[in-house]
């Protein structure tokens, strides 16, 4: 049992180390600013989680590197943008109910539209390149160019301003700590998505089959499950989550633009490499690490903000090449 004691010790050490790292920025940052930055970091992490979880599950189950995920993210933002445009009265209305309603409609529209786009993408393009990573990268990269061009055709090439529903705008002042409302909304959305994903993966038969497929696709097929249908379904869910991430991020950053997917896709890949490809919990932890470090470092040493996450990724790749969490967790 020495091994299990060692493992538990190892776990406690990891948690202790994480807490120390989390509190470390306090050396250079005032506590109140620190709290504001922490909330910002968690909010950013949750948005990254929405994008990264899709990339991660799609890779875990289907062994597909989907570079088109960034374009799906942008599509989600634009579909939401259109809903906001047509229901602008509700967006700017001084009514919590109307604000929530338009937000909800935008989320559903973005997720459904982009999930359908995901189905087409999987059936027409990705299905042809199963098992070949190089082709996957090339072909999904090609799909990205087409999808982004289509955004330019439908919505025009320029940046557009995204409006924050009135209720979500502004901030609360809780004992002198500034808490932006919309960041709290992002945290709630991310936590809900994580809870629902975990519930489906752990408690339903379909989710159990997906986790089994992450470990051994061939065996799942040989047991009589239509793995192709499963692939399409998982791809659609991943696309829908990317859309939700894109919409939420566009409200966060107050803008949409055709190329917006690229930056976040890079972050998403850093997140899944840190968290472990194929693990939803890994994506959450990885996303929180990236979100928090980004915000702390951006405050302390602005020029290092982008680089530090790549540094973390490299360190984790060196110590644990498979990422922090095992696939299927």
């Amino acid at each position, binding site marked *: 049992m020495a091994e299990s004691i060692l493992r538990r010790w190892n776990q406690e050490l990891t948690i202790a180390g994480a807490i120390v790292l989390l509190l470390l920025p306090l050396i250079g940052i005032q506590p109140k600013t620190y709290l504001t930055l922490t909330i910002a970091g968690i909010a950013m992490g949750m948005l990254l989680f929405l994008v990264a979880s899709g990339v991660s599950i799609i890779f875990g189950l289907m062994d597909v590197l989907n570079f088109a995920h960034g374009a799906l993210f942008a599509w989600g933002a634009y579909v939401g943008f259109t809903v906001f445009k047509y229901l602008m009265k509700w967006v700017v209305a001084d009514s919590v109910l109307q604000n929530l309603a338009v937000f909800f409609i935008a989320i559903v529209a973005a997720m459904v539209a982009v999930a359908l786009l995901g189905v087409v993408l999987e059936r027409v393009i990705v299905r042809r390149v199963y098992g070949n990573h190089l082709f996957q990268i090339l072909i999904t990269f090609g799909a990205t160019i087409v999808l982004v061009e289509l955004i330019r055709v439908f919505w025009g090439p320029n940046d557009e301003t995204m409006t924050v529903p009135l209720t979500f705008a502004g901030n609360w002042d809780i004992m002198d700590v500034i808490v932006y409302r919309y960041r709290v909304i992002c945290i709630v959305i991310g936590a809900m998505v994580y809870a629902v994903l975990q519930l489906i993966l752990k408690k339903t038969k379909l989710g159990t089959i997906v*986790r089994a497929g992450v470990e051994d696709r061939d*065996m799942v*097929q040989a*047991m*009589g499950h239509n793995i192709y249908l499963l692939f399409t379904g998982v791809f659609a869910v991943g696309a829908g989550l990317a859309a939700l991430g894109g919409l939420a991020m566009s409200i966060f950053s107050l803008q949409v633009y055709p190329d917006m997917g690229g930056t976040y896709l890079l972050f998403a890949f850093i997140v899944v490499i840190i968290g472990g490809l194929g693990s939803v919990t890994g994506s959450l932890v990885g996303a929180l690490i990236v979100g928090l470090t980004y915000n702390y470092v951006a405050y302390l040493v602005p020029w290092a903000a982008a680089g530090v996450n790549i540094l973390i990724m490299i360190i984790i790749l060196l110590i644990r090449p498979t990422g922090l969490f095992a696939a*299927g967790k």
Partner: protein
Amino acid sequence: MGEQGVDETILEVQGVHTFIGQHHILQGISFDAKADAVTVLIGRNGAGKSTALKTVIGLLPSSKGKIIYKGKEIQKNRPFEIARMGIGFVPENMGIFSELTVEENMRVAMLVENEATARRLDRTLEMFADLKKFWKAKAGNLSGGQKQMLAIARAIVNDTSLLLIDEPSKGLAPIIVDAVIDAINRIKEHSVVVLVEQNFYMASSVGDYFFILDDGMVAHAGHVEALIQDEALQSKYLGISEAEE
């Protein structure tokens, strides 16, 4: 199940060729499995035994030849369709989902969850008591023998008429091999079995018919009793001298 008669053939593999990448692995292999019997595929390492089973279940595509199951050609079908026709598969590496619990492994295996499946599950767990004991445990933590039991249990919990089992004795202690032999002898009562086996003791304990594979082709075939008598054949293809009693 084979109620119709002893001579009925449930599976017929006819001149099948299989490539893995550029490699021509199965070179026109032919064998069959008769109802109410255990058919054993034997042969040296690399002879193509596992490839043959994977081709039948559809995980590897055949390039030529026919695979006929219950009178229907299945060589163009996909693995999940073939499995749904009532063919169970226990691969050489057992294919255990190690991050899942024993219970979850069984649930993934159950294609329909009705009363008949529940009854088969009871029967299976009674046969493999250890699985019941470790029902909520992570399957990755089971011993090698327990994993093999789980792999077989997953395959027989459905209403299968044909089971393809790849080297269930691999890496198991002799006493566990005896338990696997018991299990297969009981499975035999309700399902046809095609067994890949290098362990001659096991092959001769459960087998009725044998096919010896060599370089992707069938070199010899016949009744297992005849093989037991034929020491020249045994030493040529099986390289055994100290078959356990």
